[in-house]
Each structure stands twice: as structure tokens, then as C-alpha cells.
């Protein structure tokens, strides 16, 4: 079970590296799709069906949005030579955080033993034990989402509402009443 998980996560890491490294946009978006769908399969292995369904749906929509944005707009890489300085800084920062993170994970509670076993008064224990009796919904995740922590879901629905309003505002054609300070045309 653990090996299958490790292979799947490794595959998604490789797909992520491909997404970051390719020059053109369309292969990068397709590699991103690969990462997303692999993640949905991993969630099924990790016994999280709700999250897997939402992950697939959201992945489809983000691919559609990204491909709409990149279709036919592939720019020729203006500065083909790789910026050596930028890559070194990037690798250094990422390497430092990585080493420190791996050392931290040795202190971490082991994989496969969730934190709710160690604390009796952890909220998850109450969710599991009397989720059905106090809320009446067998699907505990939806019970948590819509009753125990419904305020989070209200906040989240507002986030989506704000993001859509923001996209509407940014993509409207005429922003100022008497034309922009400088020309509002193409360049």
C-alpha cells in the first residue's frame, strides 16, 4: 500500500518538474493536468473519496480556463539562454528549505497514525463518534463541512464569490469613464 502511494507521488513530482521546466505553455498545462489527476488517484488510495471527486472536477475546470488563456498565444521565448543566476538562487532556497523540512519530518508523528488517536478530546474523535447522532448525516465530511464547521464553508463560498467578482472587474473592457490617463489601446 505504501509503495503504491510512493510511486504515485513520485510520478506526480516528475510531472510537476516537467510542468515547470518546459518552455512552451501548452505542454506545461498538460503536465499540470497530469499532476492534478494523479493527485485525485492518490486521494482515492488515501480513503478520501469526497476530496477526489472535487479534485477531478476542479482540475478539469482549471485546465479549461488555463487552455483558454494559452491557446494560440504561445510566445517565442524572448531570452532563450537560461538565467544562470536565477536558477542557482532558486535551487539554493529550495534546497535549504528541503533539507530543513526533511529533518523536521523525522520528528513528525509517524505516517498512518492520525493525531486524533493521541488526544482524547480532539474534535475529530467527536466528529466520528457522534457525527451521525448529533447531525444525522452519514457522510461525516459533509457533516463537518456543513454543520460542525459551516462557518468555514460560508467563508469559502465568499472567497469564490469574491474571486468571480474580481475576475469580472479585471476583465471588463472600459475601466474609466473619460478614458485612461494614457491611451487605453493595445500596447
Amino acid at each position, binding site marked *: 500500500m505504501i509503495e503504491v502511494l510512493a510511486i504515485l507521488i513520485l510520478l506526480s513530482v516528475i510531472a510537476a518538474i516537467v510542468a515547470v521546466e518546459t518552455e512552451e505553455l501548452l505542454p506545461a498545462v498538460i503536465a499540470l493536468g497530469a499532476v492534478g489527476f494523479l493527485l485525485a488517484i492518490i486521494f482515492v488510495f488515501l480513503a478520501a473519496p469526497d476530496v477526489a471527486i472535487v479534485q477531478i472536477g476542479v482540475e478539469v475546470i482549471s485546465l479549461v480556463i488555463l487552455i483558454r488563456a494559452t491557446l494560440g498565444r504561445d510566445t517565442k521565448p524572448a531570452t532563450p539562454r537560461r538565467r544562470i543566476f536565477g536558477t542557482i538562487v532558486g535551487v539554493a532556497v529550495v534546497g535549504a528549505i528541503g533539507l*530543513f*523540512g526533511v*529533518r*523536521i519530518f523525522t*520528528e*513528525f*508523528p509517524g505516517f498512518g497514525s492520525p*493525531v*486524533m488517536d*493521541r*488526544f482524547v*478530546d*480532539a*474534535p*475529530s474523535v*467527536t*466528529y466520528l463518534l457522534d457525527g451521525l447522532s448529533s447531525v444525522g448525516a452519514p457522510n461525516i465530511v459533509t457533516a463537518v463541512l456543513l*454543520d*460542525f*464547521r*459551516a*462557518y*468555514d464553508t*460560508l*467563508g*469559502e463560498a*465568499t*472567497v469564490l*464569490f*469574491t*474571486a468571480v*467578482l*474580481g*475576475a*469580472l*472587474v*479585471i476583465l*471588463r473592457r*472600459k*475601466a*474609466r*469613464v*473619460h478614458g*485612461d*490617463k*494614457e491611451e*487605453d489601446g493595445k500596447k
Partner: protein
Amino acid sequence: MTMIILFIALPLTMAVVIQVLAHQRPVLSDWLTNATLLTLAIISFYSVGRYGLYHIGGWTTPIGIDLRLDPLSSLLLIVINVVSLAAGLYSVEYMRSYTSKTHFYGLFLLLVTGMNGVVLAGDLFNLYVFLEIAAIASYALVAFGCAHEELEASFKYAVLGTVSSTFILIGITFVYAVTGTLNMAQIAARISDIGMTPPLVLAFGLFICGFSLKAALVPFHAWLPDAHPSAPAPVSAMLSGVLIKAIGIYVLARLIFNVFGVGQGELAVLRWLGVISMVAGALLAAGQTDIKRLFAYSSISQVGYIALGLGLGTPLGLVGALYHLANHAVFKSLLFLNAGAVEQATGTRDLDKLGGLNRTLPVTGATSLIGSMSIAGIPPFNGFWSKLIIILAAVEAGFMGFATVAVAISIVTLVYQLKVQRHAFFAAPKDLLTTWRQEPRLMSLAMVVLAFGCIALSFLVVTGLRTPFLINAAQETLMRGVFGL
């Protein structure tokens, strides 16, 4: 205590109602927005000196989410809602030169909802969700004019903001993996039992990076000098005056003092962040010619003062920091509103081209004089008192070096503020065609309200009127230490 929930539910419901109703009568959205902001301001004054714990959904503490009201959050609520009321009044006329005003009001109310939600949150993940609401609303509001600079500034701000939110989410994952709960009071209790194990130290480091990017402390300030000048004036007043405090400094103070427990290491980090931001912000501000960009850099240095005050950890230091937080919110938003009025009247923000605006814009001139005096720290005004308290606290806590740096920086602040006054308002009037016959009423009303706020705040110390909510807010944050369960 159902009043607490009104702070979030009322602006949110109004934002949605405005989107539905206002398509027919846009004037309705002006009235609805300002009525909501007025009621919020009144409720925030009503909440002074009250303690409250509101269980959402009727669930007891660790199971459900609860909202927590204590003097520190009521201080922040007053600051947020008063400045947003002034900005709301200001934008009734300022936003006439932009299209789709109803969307602007929707995003503005959602920004207020997000900040109120963060200040009242008693649950760590809930704080993250409302932080995202405020952040996304501010990304869209910065890019409201869709001009070249605004889009680019908003993109840079959005990318850096998303990276910092991801760091905060990783921090929350580590805290949950070690303590097993998300309720801040219970986390504080668990941490005081377990002590700071390595995963918690990494989580704390991630929080420091994430929230100091939201508070624009120096190593993470790159987005602020572009985002604030290019945003419309009421938005940059809200961003500079209130947003970087409500979702940056407040959360850092709450985490350090109430959740992770006060340790000398954490305070030293905060002190050094504060001092570096103070110095870098002031020096960069001195060299600017664009009014709004100058004020943006001066925001970074003033937030550095607040971080230094908090980092001292002594009761006097906290009093100075919170007093300066309230002062800076009022006079920085006043200065940004003045800059907006100047820009709309003369069409330019460049100091070299401006001159002699005192005669053409009397109200803006007078209020910006008050604002500049108080930010520069001239004795009778409120800026002087709060900086004085911070410097005294630094001396009392034994950090002579920081105290001298603070004094030097306040002199540099004085220099560049006088530069703005001299160039824009008192110099010989250049042949600037002002498009206004006379200043719009509501915009001047907003500026007068904030100027009155500056003067009222300076009376807090002068008349020895140690108002309850300011002093015991500082004591409560420090002395209580772990959250009062």
C-alpha cells in the same frame, strides 16, 4: 452576544444584496454601502471593553468554530470600521471616474468582511479563510483601474500573496499534526504542555514569513510600493491604513503573545524585523517624487515602529505599539485620501509638477497639514505621543541602539513629510488647470472626519484620559499569555 456575528454577516449579506439589487438603481448601492459601514462603526464603538465568546452553530469550543471578542480585537474593530466608513464616504464621489461602481462596493464590503473575520477569528483555519477573502478582494481592488501599472502591480501582489498564504497553510498543517486541534485557545494550552518541538518551530517560522509578507515588513515588502500607489485612493487608504495591520501585525501579535507563548527568540525576530523595516522604509521614502509611492514607503517604516514596539515585550512597549497602530491607521489613510483628491484635481501625482494647492484645495490642504504634522511627530499631534512611548519603552527595556535609531528615523520622517507639504501645498502655484470648481462635499467630509480622528486620538494622552480599551488591550495581550479559556 449576538452582536459579534453582525460584524461579518452584515457586510457580507449587504455585498451580495448590492450585487443583486443595484443593477437597476446604482444610487441605491451608494446608500446601502454607507449605511452598512455606519452601523458597523457604531457597533464597533459599542463593543469596547466587552469580552465575548460566540459559539457558531451552538457547538462547544473544540468541536465548532467560535468567535472571540477581547479588548485587543475591539481596538482593531474600531480602527477598521472607522477608516472604512471614511473611505466609503470618500469613494461615493471619487469612484465616479471609474465604471461598474456596484462591483467596487461589493469588493469593498467583502474586504471589510474579511478583515472583521480575521480580527474576530478564534480558530486558526478560519482565520486563514477570512484572510484569503480580504486578500483576494484587495488583489481585485488594486487592479480596479485596469491601467498598465495597476494590472502589473496587482499581479505581483497576487503572486506574493498566494505564496505567503500557502506558507501559512503549511504552518497550519504542522500545528494540526502536532496538537490535533484548530481552536487557538486549545492550541495554546497544548503548546504550553508539549513545549516548542521542532515541527512547531518550523510552523512558527512559516507563520512569521507568511504574516510579515502580509504586513509588508522589509524582507517581504516588495509588493507594497507598487500596489498601493496604483490602487484607487480609497482602496490604498484601506490597504495602507488598515489591511497590513489587521491581517499582518494583529495576527503576529496574537500568535506570539497568545498562541505560541512569549519567548525571547520570537520577540528578537519581531524587533529586528521592525527596525530593518523602519530604516529601509524611511530612507526609500525620502527619495520619492510620486506622492502615493512616498506614502507607501513611509507606511513600511511606520509599521516597523509598531513591530519594534510589539517586539519589546514590555507593557509600555505594547501600549506604544497599539497606540501607534491606531494613530497610523488614521493619519496614513488621511494622507492617501488627500493624495487622491490632489490627483483627481490636478491629474498628476508628481511633486515637481505640483504647487500652491492651498488656495485651490483649501480643505485638502488643511487636512493634509494635520496629517503630515501627526505622522512627522510634531508635539501636539498624536504621532508624537505614540513614537515617544515606543522610544521610552525601548530605553526602559534597555535597547539604547533601537531607541536612537527610532529617534533618527522620526527625524527623517519629518524631513520627507515637510518636503511633501512644501512642494504640493505651499510652493509658488504652477499653472495647473484644476478640473474641479470646488472640492466635492463628501470627499472633504471624509477627510475632515479623519483629521478630527487624529486630533481626538492625541487627546488620549494629553488629558490623561487613559481610555480603557487601549490600555487593558495591551495588558490583556501580554499578561494573559495563553488564551483566557
